[in-house]
């Protein structure tokens, strides 16, 4: 909340220079940067002020926050909560009510153009956004106000990135992701349902220290969303050999075979789940014998079904036998019509032919 730099605020707390450098090393590594960039991190922490972070939640389940608080990386978490000031968080804050809201307004005004806005949850747009209101104001309104004043916006979770669960068919609230409403500010998407905690902390730290990281076409940091789960999956050799589990408790599943036939969306899902994994690198869904849901991708709820293979076209699933029967009947009707038309053509040809022959015979 001051213009003190990160280093200064650390030093104030009694962190020695040595410890600071150690932390900077670990931060560099945690950010996935090569060691040559270590001086950059030191310099950033020495010169950049502690930036405020405003964390807004809209149509969410708070799962992304829950994930964040399970981060096993003490360094980044410490960095985030001690040395970067999270100045508004609906779930984590004890404060509530009018004062909390007023405080938020104050921070946003004081640090206009300097704070990082983090958004969790989708924003309903239908009926003037009445389906999510905080303190009497719609999410639509709140986002517009906050984003206008922010330096950059980070959408944490698939809901704020792409609309997530509320956006799934039939989308009764008209839920959308942040990118559809905020177009004039740097925007980073950190999708996932929830995202991996280290991915969240890493990205926010990167924004604060080094600016916006390299993003892919969907606005996701390439460092964590540059490869698919399939690309790094430990079960990949089974895929290549064509050894697939056919059901959850068959011999193949027990032997750890590929879950492609059981609906794994790994090949189309860009995420770091197979490398960073969850719960301090213990495991991730596929390793636990459950197919990847594809939760970092837009519309993963509507992608045909979690337990339907990628190869099974939803278009076929949705065509009922009645519809197939009707198509068959339609074809038959067309064939009948065509045959009748053909018979007519034949009859006319025969008639003309005969008439011509008779004419010639008379001649």
């Amino acid at each position, binding site marked *: 909340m001051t213009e003190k730099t990160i280093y200064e605020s650390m030093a104030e707390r009694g962190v020695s220079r040595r410890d600071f450098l150690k932390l900077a090393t670990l931060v560099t590594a945690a950010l996935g940067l090569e060691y040559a960039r270590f001086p950059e991190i030191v310099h950033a922490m020495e010169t950049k002020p502690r930036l405020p972070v405003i964390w807004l939640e809209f149509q969410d389940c708070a799962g992304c926050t829950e994930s964040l608080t399970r981060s096993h990386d003490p360094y980044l978490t410490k960095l985030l909560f001690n040395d970067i000031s999270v100045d508004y968080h609906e779930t984590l804050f004890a404060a509530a009510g009018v004062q909390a809201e007023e405080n938020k307004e104050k921070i946003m005004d004081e640090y206009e153009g300097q704070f990082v806005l983090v958004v969790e949850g989708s924003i309903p747009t239908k009926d003037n956004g009445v389906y999510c209101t905080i303190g009497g104001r719609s999410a639509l309104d709140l986002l517009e106000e906050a984003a206008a004043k922010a330096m950059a916006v980070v959408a944490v979770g698939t809901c704020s990135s792409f609309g997530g669960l509320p956006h799934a068919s039939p989308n009764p609230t008209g839920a959308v992701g942040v990118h559809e409403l905020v177009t004039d500010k740097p925007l980073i998407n950190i999708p996932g349902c929830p995202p991996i905690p280290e991915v969240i902390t890493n990205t926010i730290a990167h924004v604060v220290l080094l600016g916006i990281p390299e993003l892919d076409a969907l606005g996701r940091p390439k460092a964590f969303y540059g490869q698919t789960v399939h690309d790094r999956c430990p079960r990949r050799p089974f895929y290549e050999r064509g050894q697939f589990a056919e059901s959850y408790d068959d011999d193949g599943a027990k032997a750890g075979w590929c879950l492609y036939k059981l609906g794994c969306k790994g090949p189309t899902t860009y995420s770091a789940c197979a490398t960073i994994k969850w719960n301090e690198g213990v495991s991730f869904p596929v390793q636990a014998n459950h197919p990847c849901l594809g939760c970092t991708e837009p519309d993963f709820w509507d992608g045909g079904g979690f337990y339907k293979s990628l190869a099974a076209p939803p278009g076929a699933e949705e065509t009922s036998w009645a519809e197939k029967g009707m198509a068959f009947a339609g074809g038959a009707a067309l064939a009948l019509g*065509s045959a009748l038309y*053909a018979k007519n*053509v*034949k009859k006319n*040809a*025969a008639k*003309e*032919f005969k008439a*011509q022959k008779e004419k010639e015979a008379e001649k």
Partner: protein
Amino acid sequence: MDADQRISQYYLQHTDGWLLAQLDACTRCGICAEACPFYLGTGDAVHTPVRKIEPLRQAVQEKFSLVGLARSLFKKHHPAADELSNWVSEAYFACTVCNRCSLACPMGIDLGVLIQLTREGLAAGGLTPPTLADAVQRQKNTGSPLGVTKTLFENRLDWLREEENVEIPLDVPGADSLVVFTSIELIKFPGNLSAMAKVLNAAGEPWTLSSTGRESVNFATFSGDTEEQVEFVRRITEAALELGVQRIILTECGHAYDAVRRIAVQLYGMPLPFQVENVLETIVRLLRNGKIRLNRNVFDGQRITYHDACKLQRLGGLIEQPREILNLVAPTTFVEMTPNREAQWCCGGGGGVIASPEADEIRMKAFLPKVEQLEKITPNTVVTACSTCRLQFLDGSKYYDLDIDVRGITELVAAALETDTPKGA
């Protein structure tokens, strides 16, 4: 009405599910070309069998396919009038309707029947080649495409009886069989008649010729004139009914067997009032019943091969009969050509091709696969059961300087007849 319209209408009239399926199934793979002696002999892709049915395909496509209907909005009538002479040439001079392409087609398309249908359409448009058209007229008026009138026929028989010292009954009511020759045999290969007479007389089977049903060649089959085709068959069947015979025996002619069998059923329904037999079947029947016996050594020292006439084998199923005969009569001297039986190469003269002077050059080229076959086994005699094939082989062996004899199977059998054994033994 113009020729192209008449032709198109003929094809449309005859479009049924069968035709649509046949035309639909073609994937334009071109394997049919590999089976056609005209393509292989000339090396010219225009003689690909599936191309010979182009006018038929175009007419049907124009009216019965979405693409055709759309195209007909812009382009005029198919088949195009200026291409007709081309199609006539392909269908009548570059094809014998041998049906070899039908067996090669991976889709099982009956190309032979389609080409025949193509000819019928062209004939309906008045585009039959003049030589064939003249022959049909002659057959209509005189009873034979060569102009062999009743009088000529009877005179020729008289001459033959004297020359060969053989009994040839004519117009005998109540005989078992009515034998119908071709006028080509009568004029060019009279040995066939005397040979047949010798065999049947030796077998003791009552038989007769008929002065009204005296022609088994059916030039309307070649030209595609369907009405005349029926009429020419009717002359034979009515003679058979009039004489009250049990069976009609057709002699060495390729197309007659199929034409008479098929059209007789159309005229009289099933069961037929008489059997229809080809001379090959006759000889086998007589052999199996012990009515005739053959000398197994007559042809020792020779090298005999058999040419399967296309219409007899692919359209008639008469494949094993000649072999039964030849294995009996030339057990050590009979060699097969390769390929043989239903895969046998067409000689290139059938289907009326030999009758059209326009086709003289190309049919010698179509004979080339045959030359290759013969050079591989170097026979000194080729035996066949079709007079057109016989003529083509004679022309071809002269053209290519091949030193081979060409004989009909009936003559061979007659030459091997054991005449001193009691009948029925």
